[in-house]
């Protein structure tokens, strides 16, 4: 017999309570998994897209909350193209619009022939005319459209040239139209959301990552110095910006979920300690060290955390799977199974259990054997 045997028997002894606690913790962890998982997947997908596409810097309006609030003048594109080390400068424009039955889509305006279109796998052909559109595979599925069909965006009719697949599911849920057409639809001529920059690193094979970063930083500094109303970010920093509000919101909710998990375990463990006051008193009386009692309580608490973690991860992925199929949000969220995220969640579950065990453990060792054994 060891401490683990006692813990397992303790949990088994109060089966219903243990099960309810594990479920409670599991639900909280599942909220964490689904919320953090979605944003984590989103962040990873965006990073992959930008890196593979070769975008090094993103230029947007200074001091805006996120990229969707950014509006800059298109004339900056030409000026940025003239800067040293800038190889490509591609303007982008974002627009959220309900195409049919209140189904919202992110519509992206790109210049036909820009480098951003290069890595899309298009079933059909790329943008050519002013009224051409490309539909991401998820968007096409949602709209039940295929190449050759037409769609209406705010009164303008577009011809679907092709259906594309990108490197991330988020982009697969979008519609790409020519920049000028989207400016017309939005009634914002000459205005764009941001500019993607691809830099010229010369013989990049011979260049270290540090040297590339140095060059990128140099260009960044030059733009920041020369264009007072613009803000330049490298891809790593930029990823966090467009969804900063969503990320902060989901972070806050997931922290509340974790706090609920901690409170659930504290409640169960404190009750268990109070129920076992006499037994713990006897252990102290027969010579168990306080450290062993602390270990006993905290380990039991950690077991709740681990079991809750397992339940939570399974439940979280089930919730995510359901969420990604909902028509209202399909295409805006992505789902992948990332082992590092799952491992981090389990680590967090252990931490939740450990933190939750502190108070009951302190409570347990504060038991005075004489107090609990005096009255029979």
């Amino acid at each position, binding site marked *: *017999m*060891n*401490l683990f*045997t*006692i813990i397992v*028997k*303790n949990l*088994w*002894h109060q089966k219903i309570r243990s099960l309810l606690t594990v479920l409670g913790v599991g639900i909280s962890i599942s909220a964490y998994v689904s919320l953090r998982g979605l944003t984590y997947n989103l962040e990873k997908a965006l990073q992959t897209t930008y890196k593979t596409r070769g975008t090094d810097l993103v230029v947007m309006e200074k001091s805006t909350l996120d990229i969707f609030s950014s509006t800059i003048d298109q004339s900056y594109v030409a000026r940025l193209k003239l800067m040293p080390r800038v190889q490509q400068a591609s303007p982008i424009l974002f627009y959220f619009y309900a195409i049919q039955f209140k189904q919202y889509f992110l519509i992206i305006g790109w210049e036909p022939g820009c480098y951003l279109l290069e890595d899309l796998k298009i079933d059909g052909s790329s943008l050519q005319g002013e009224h051409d559109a490309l539909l991401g595979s998820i968007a096409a599925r949602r709209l039940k459209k295929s190449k050759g069909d037409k769609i209406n965006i705010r009164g303008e009719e577009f011809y679907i040239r092709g259906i594309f697949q990108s490197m991330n599911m988020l982009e697969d849920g979008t519609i790409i139209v020519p920049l000028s057409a989207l400016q017309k639809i939005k009634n914002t001529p000459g205005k764009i959301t941001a500019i993607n920059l691809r830099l010229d690193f010369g013989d990049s094979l011979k260049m270290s990552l540090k040297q590339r970063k140095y060059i990128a930083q140099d260009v960044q500094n030059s733009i920041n110095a020369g264009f007072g109303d613009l803000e330049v970010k490298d891809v790593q920093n930029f990823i966090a910006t467009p969804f900063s509000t969503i990320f902060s919101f989901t972070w806050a909710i997931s922290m509340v979920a974790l706090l609920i998990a901690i409170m659930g375990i504290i409640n169960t463990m404190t009750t268990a300690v109070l129920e*076992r006051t*006499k*037994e713990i*008193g*006897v*252990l102290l*009386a*027969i*010579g*168990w*060290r306080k450290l*062993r009692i602390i270990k006993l309580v905290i380990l039991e608490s950690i077991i709740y955390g681990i079991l809750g973690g397992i339940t939570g991860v399974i439940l979280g992925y089930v919730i995510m799977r359901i969420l990604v199929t909902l028509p209202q949000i399909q295409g805006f969220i992505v789902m992948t199974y990332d082992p590092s995220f799952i491992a981090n969640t389990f680590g967090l579950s252990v931490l939740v259990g450990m933190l939750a065990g502190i108070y009951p453990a302190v409570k347990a060792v504060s038991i005075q*054997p*004489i107090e609990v*054994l*005096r009255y*029979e």
Partner: protein
Amino acid sequence: MNNSIILEAINISKFYEDGQVKAVDDISLQVYTGEVLIIGGPSGSGKSTLLHLLGGLDLPSSGKVYFKGKSIQDVYGSKGFRVKNIGFVFQAFYLWQNLNVMENVMLPLMELPLTRRQRISRTKEIIEEVGLTDKIKAQVKLISMGQRQRVAVARALVANPSVIFADEPTGSLDSCNKENILQLLRRFNRQNKVTVVMVTHESPAVEYFDRKIQLLDGRICV
């Protein structure tokens, strides 16, 4: 029993409620190695409090308790002291309800640097000695009161302590089981030379003890 003193209380008192209640009042007492000492007296006479003070569960308001010549206050916290030297048996047994007989008995051994094999072997040995081998895997909540008290005695003895403190060990038992427990404690006292300090408000037969003191209002009267 020999004449060496294992436990000595010198002028110990225990007061509660700012000295208004004197549970133990200026008691001096020697306990000799290998004896069975009965502390008797009516309810509220302070016998359990005296036992707790002697066993180091509580500290006296004044006076000193010495264990093998050392102040119990000094040795109380030292690693392994209690497990190696002191065993407790209580009227209400205080067993872990969700553990079986063997696991309950083994609890004190978890504090000692023994291998798993040594722990199991020692536990089985003591369970056999208290006559519960056939109940070794039984849940303690499913065995009789007398058997539960045997488990508690085995738990108190498993680490071979020098002194067993028994607080009304027969208080919850029928007359047959009372005899069994008293016989058991006496047998271990004689066989293992373990000193037994037992509180009881009853009067056990003379063959079960060597010496008896009687308390009244916190003082030794006989």
